[in-house]
């Protein structure tokens, strides 16, 4: 009964739900303007507002970030508080309903449809902590944002990215000895595969790195170390990683816009990556050097 199976070689799991990148990442906060201001400094532009909810869309290149300040209307979801929390990831998939049904059959907790964040019936499941994972299959010519959102008049709907910035991944904090559980979760439900421990991107190499089956997105699972091991288990989506082919150039551009990067003995900007200081009580962005082989610069 040892855990020796080479999961990655099982053909049916190569891309079981036809994952094709990230449609959006959602923050929840009671101070959407403060977070919006931080996102603008990071190069995002507000492009649309939800028709009926307190939800705003920010965009930069291929990246969509949604700020939700609507009060939570179902249990185990993030309630808006002052410090922004990453409350959802929306994965692009071949058939959202099929992916959702499959996840439920495998033992995921579904989000009741009446309380979906957006108007369209976007199927979702519970992820780590109070966060949700949505399945989106309308993202080509006609996206969910074309239906649920009203474009802000006079803005560029597709603002270009600073130095080709794109979503690289998300860092997830997990409890002591919990990384293997989450590896199994992301492997089985979405087809993520584990990257060997000697392959690392950026300047924050700890933990387990998982790559999406579409090879465009990474999840980094980090267990607590030191005294944090004895604290109560706290698991959450901690920060977003942004890929760029030129870390120094991008960091310099962002610094001009008022973003500060950590510069300590252990963590400082190098050609491999950079980490912003914490803003608004904990929001951080990581820059990660990407080259075509990591395929993180997908448009």
């Amino acid at each position: 009964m040892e855990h020796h199976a080479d999961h990655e070689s099982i053909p049916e799991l190569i891309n079981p739900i036809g994952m094709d990148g990230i449609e959006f990442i959602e923050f929840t906060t009671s101070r959407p303007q403060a977070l919006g201001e931080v996102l603008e400094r990071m190069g995002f532009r507000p492009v649309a507002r939800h028709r009926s909810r307190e939800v705003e869309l920010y965009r930069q290149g291929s990246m969509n970030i949604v700020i939700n300040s609507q009060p939570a209307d179902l249990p185990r979801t993030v309630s808006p508080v002052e410090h922004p929390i990453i409350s959802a990831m929306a994965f692009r998939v071949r058939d959202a309903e099929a992916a959702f049904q499959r996840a439920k059959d495998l033992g995921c907790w579904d989000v009741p449809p009446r309380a979906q964040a957006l108007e369209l019936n976007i199927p979702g499941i519970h992820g780590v902590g109070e966060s949700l994972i949505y399945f989106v299959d309308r993202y080509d010519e006609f996206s969910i944002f074309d239906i649920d959102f009203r474009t802000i008049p006079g803005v560029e709907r597709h603002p270009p990215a600073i130095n080709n910035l794109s979503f690289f991944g998300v860092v997830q904090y997990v409890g002591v000895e919990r990384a293997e559980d989450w590896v199994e979760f992301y492997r089985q439900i979405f087809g993520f595969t584990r990257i060997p421990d000697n392959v690392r991107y950026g300047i924050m190499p700890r933990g387990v790195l998982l790559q999406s089956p579409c090879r465009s997105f990474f999840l980094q699972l980090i267990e607590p170390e030191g005294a944090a091991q004895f604290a109560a288990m706290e698991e959450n989506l901690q920060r977003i990683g942004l890929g760029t082919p030129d870390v120094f150039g991008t960091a310099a551009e962002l610094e001009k816009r008022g973003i500060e990067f950590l510069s300590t003995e252990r963590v400082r900007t190098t050609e491999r990556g950079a980490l912003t200081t914490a803003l608004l009580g904990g929001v951080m962005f990581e820059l990660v050097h990407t080259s075509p082989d990591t395929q993180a610069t997908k448009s």
Partner: protein
Amino acid sequence: MNFNDFGIDSASLAGSLETRLAAAKRAGFTQIMISAADIVGHPQDTETAVQAIRNSGLRVTGLEALRDFEGLGGRMHEYKVDVAKSMLTLCDRIQSRLLMTEASSSTHADTDPEKIAKDLRKLAFLALPKGIRIAYKGLSWSRTAKDFIAAADIVGLADCPNLGLAIDVFDIIAAGVPVEDLDAIFTPRVFLVQLSDFMLQEVRSPEEEIMTAARFRVFPGEGAHSDILSKFVVKLEDNGYFGDYSFDVYNSDYLQMPPEEIALRARRAADWLGETVLRRTLPVPNMERLRLAGRH
């Protein structure tokens, strides 16, 4: 003497939930196994019971027990998934990191190992986001897994990191399982060991076993099979078991005796095991972490 590895089972004690928690604590225990009925049967309400447990300062060894979950089809399966979700939510509320699941004795259960494994894997996935582990326990009267070896085979087939085994040493003694059988299982997959003995020299029929299991168990050191029990515990330790031991002493006489007295009997059992059988060392800083690390 380190008691932290041993826990009492609330079902061994009479009285209200609060009385039992207090008795366990006074006897020196730091953990307690909780039955779902303790919480939902609280005379006030579920929330009061949850708060009583959380305020007791005792760690919850696990919540027991989800029964007859695996092997069902169609609407019965859906119904059991709802029951499991409810128990997992309860488990989370009392900050228990383990849900004990007993192998099904339902006559409707499919006994195909692939189907059983698939259902248990689903249960483990339901538990996963909440950080709860599923400890699957074979039962001699089950249709899906009659003993820990059969349960281990299914757990191996399901292959999920938060799915493991609960081993009840009572069952091992009653069935006369040789101690070497423990070598057949992968010890890190053992999430919980339950310890109890009984007075009868041998169990002669399945009916007698069920009756003895439900009503005539005694604490380790009090029964007729101390020698076998201690050999099993030593073997488990030799094989690298670092988890909790829970005294699952279900005894109808003990439920007519003061819980403080029974908790002290449990303490004597922990003393006997710790000093005579295990000779575990005194706790040192980072002990918990070392024990956790030992699970891999």
